[in-house]
């Protein structure tokens, strides 16, 4: 997932045995327990915000200069739910497009932007 995120692409795991698409990544399928997983790579995934929060406190100094931070729980149309940064204040029910990139520590992170903003741009 990291390697794909480095190229700005979002990779979700797909089980070749049962078709389950899952996130967070695991070493086997959370449904049928097969370990025949492949990456399903896209530029972005459409989804819907289920809940959101605005962080005013962080346990890591690296985030302290960036507060407040908007974060949401997003249900991807592909199936799984994912926690991701919200690039703007999106309330529940908002349609978004979710992308992946590497963060300041080289971790793959997801960001959700209003679906409409992509169509406009």
């Amino acid at each position, binding site marked *: 997932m990291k390697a794909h995120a480095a190229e700005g692409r979002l990779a979700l795991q797909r089980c070749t045995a049962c078709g389950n698409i899952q996130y967070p990544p695991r070493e086997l399928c959370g449904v049928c327990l097969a370990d025949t997983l492949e990456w399903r790579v896209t530029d972005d995934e459409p989804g819907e915000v289920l809940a959101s929060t605005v*962080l005013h406190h962080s346990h*890591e100094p690296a*985030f302290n200069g960036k507060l407040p931070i908007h974060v949401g729980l997003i249900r991807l149309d592909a199936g799984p739910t994912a926690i*991701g940064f919200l690039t703007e204040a999106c309330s529940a029910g908002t349609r978004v497009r979710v992308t992946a990139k590497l963060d300041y520590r080289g*971790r793959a992170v997801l960001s959700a932007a209003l679906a409409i903003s992509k169509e406009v741009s």
Partner: protein
Amino acid sequence: MNDYGDVVVCAPVTVPYVRRSDKGAAWWLGSALRRLLEASGLAKRQVDGLCLSSFTLAPDGPAPFVQYVGLSPRFLEFLPTGGACGIMALRRAARAVQCGDADVVACIAGDTNGAESFHDLVAQFSSFSRDCVWPYGAGGPNESFALLTEHAMRRTGATRADFGKLCVAQRQWAQRNPLALLRGELTLETYLAARPIAVPLHLLDCVMPCAGADGYLVMRRVHAEVLGLRYVRILATIERHNAFPDDPIQWRGGWAMDADALWQRASIGPDEIDLVETYDDYPVISMLQFEDLGFCAKDAGADFIRRNEFGPGGNFPHNTGGGQLSCGQAGAAGGFLGLVEAVRQLTGAAEGRGVDGARHALIGGFGMINYDRGICTAAAVLAA
């Protein structure tokens, strides 16, 4: 074999919580064990079962711990299940005693809280949390519970003032409990004016990490009587893990799967409960327990809070020692707090805050926010 026969719970003990401690988890757990021996008059060799819960005991686990404190138990459980561990320990201990695998089981939970303990715990809480929650601002559990709270507020119409009502009532109880760390007067105005942490959560919605330990003993009734210990009976218990995995967001807990079985086995209903000890690391979880354990209909949680009074003298005594929100959360001991308080109440040991004539208590447990939801739920009905 659903009933627990003549198995009883006794000797509720607490090693008084402190905000920070430079002692290790083994000191806290071992001190709880010492208090159990003092409270019961038992010798160490008579404790032949141990249920242990802790997050900060590493690199030690249950086996190193029994050597550390010089126990030789023939029954040993380690339950790193956070807020559900108190009831899970009770269930396992009760069956061990009932079936003869142990005569006396000490159930102990505790954690230390050094300068970096809480940060290290939440940063590495689980693989999903470390990889897929922590990078998003490192808000820790506040962040996950904020998402659940925001959703629950929309689902039920609950407002911050509704949650504040619960917090204020618990603080009134805490003012009668010398073991609570937060005993200053709390008004709804103060609650509402607290600084934002992870909106909609503000400072006084968030449990305060601390160090501490709690414990209790499980044995046969006749044994407790010989020791002269006051005891409570176990009417029914439930536990469930990873309930409703297909719910896109956690709007109900595992209690909703098992509440009917709980009341059926207890042979009483929610109306016959005299005091309720919910797991309250955040007030939204108390509201979820009111709904899912049958004290009100689903989605009626906010209305239930508005219609009832939860503090001393109220019609619905709730978290009668102050709950975690006023006592502090001593790691795994948070999973014991409500159970220990309920045993105190039902045995007349809740000095200065006893609920008059209390005969039945319900205790809820909720543990392990992994990724987007709490995984473990449990509940118990105890009787005087």
